[in-house]
């Protein structure tokens, strides 16, 4: 992962894609969100979603999965260059999460992350606070998901 000083507002990373299969949608829903339109094709068709739809929490969790994979990729690249690898802190939360369109069985969603704001923490000067807009777009190019997530990012020169 990168340090606060290596990041700029507007930087965008393509995180990769996740395909929501009918089985995956039903498995997640059975455990966490067993509403009929997340469990059954016919119920999904009759709903506002128009088909078997993934739980919104499944979509958010898939975005997290790709964010973590991208972080590992960045860490490996930094290590390969012989650089110190930044370890990000836990997230304090998010705002403005929007499930813009339903994600239906068979959809493949491409996720990306763009830095929207950065500031230093006054109470913890070794940390910076970053807000990133994480978005998901389906195979037809339609936006399906958006969230403004907050992260604690270590500052390069404040660790001593």
């Amino acid at each position, binding site marked *: 992962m990168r340090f606060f000083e290596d990041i700029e507002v507007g930087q965008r990373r393509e995180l990769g894609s996740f395909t929501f299969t009918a089985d995956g949608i039903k498995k997640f829903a059975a455990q966490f969100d067993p509403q009929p339109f997340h469990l059954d094709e016919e119920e999904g068709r009759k709903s506002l979603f128009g088909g078997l739809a993934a*739980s919104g929490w499944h979509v958010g969790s898939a975005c997290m999965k790709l964010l973590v994979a991208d972080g590992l990729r960045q860490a490996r690249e930094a290590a390969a260059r012989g650089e110190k690898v930044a370890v990000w802190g836990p997230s304090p939360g998010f705002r403005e999460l929007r499930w813009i369109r339903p994600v239906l069985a068979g959809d493949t969603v491409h996720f990306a992350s763009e830095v929207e704001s950065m500031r230093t923490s006054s109470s913890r000067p070794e940390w910076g606070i970053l807000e990133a807009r994480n978005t998901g777009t389906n195979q037809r190019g339609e936006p399906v998901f958006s969230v403004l997530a907050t992260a604690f990012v270590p500052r390069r020169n404040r660790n001593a």
Partner: protein
Amino acid sequence: MTSLAFEDFKPGHLGRFGPRGVTREEILAFAAEFDPQPMHLDEEAASRSMLKGLSGSGWHLCSVIMRMMFDAFIGRTASLGSPGVNELRWLAPLRPGDELTLDVEVTEARVSRSRPATGIVTLKAVVSNAAGQALCEMVSPIIVRRREDAASGQAG
């Protein structure tokens, strides 16, 4: 099975629900699939992290809140889904063995302008551990069908 409609959600405290336990196995399984960070998977790495010990993924906690809301009232509500989450804060880590309690408040309930047969109910949910420490707080609207007589009365 669906017995609750928009008219049943009035501003104020909706209820306290739970407890629901979360096991170490559940935390590890969710993390392995969706959030494989060392602080959610590995005791040793977790003890050195900012959260000082194994903790559940924040998205796991969100998903458990969803399930608690389903079991408490969404499962018997004429719910049509949710457009999103206004704000969510992770306040303290979810730990293996936590017994969670969920407090839900209706902060706003209004009829939808674009779909008058439905209403938008904004919920504030706070999930706490057995010690009463709040772990997560979120504000999220859900779309709920109105009772037919109420909706048609409005339209006429």
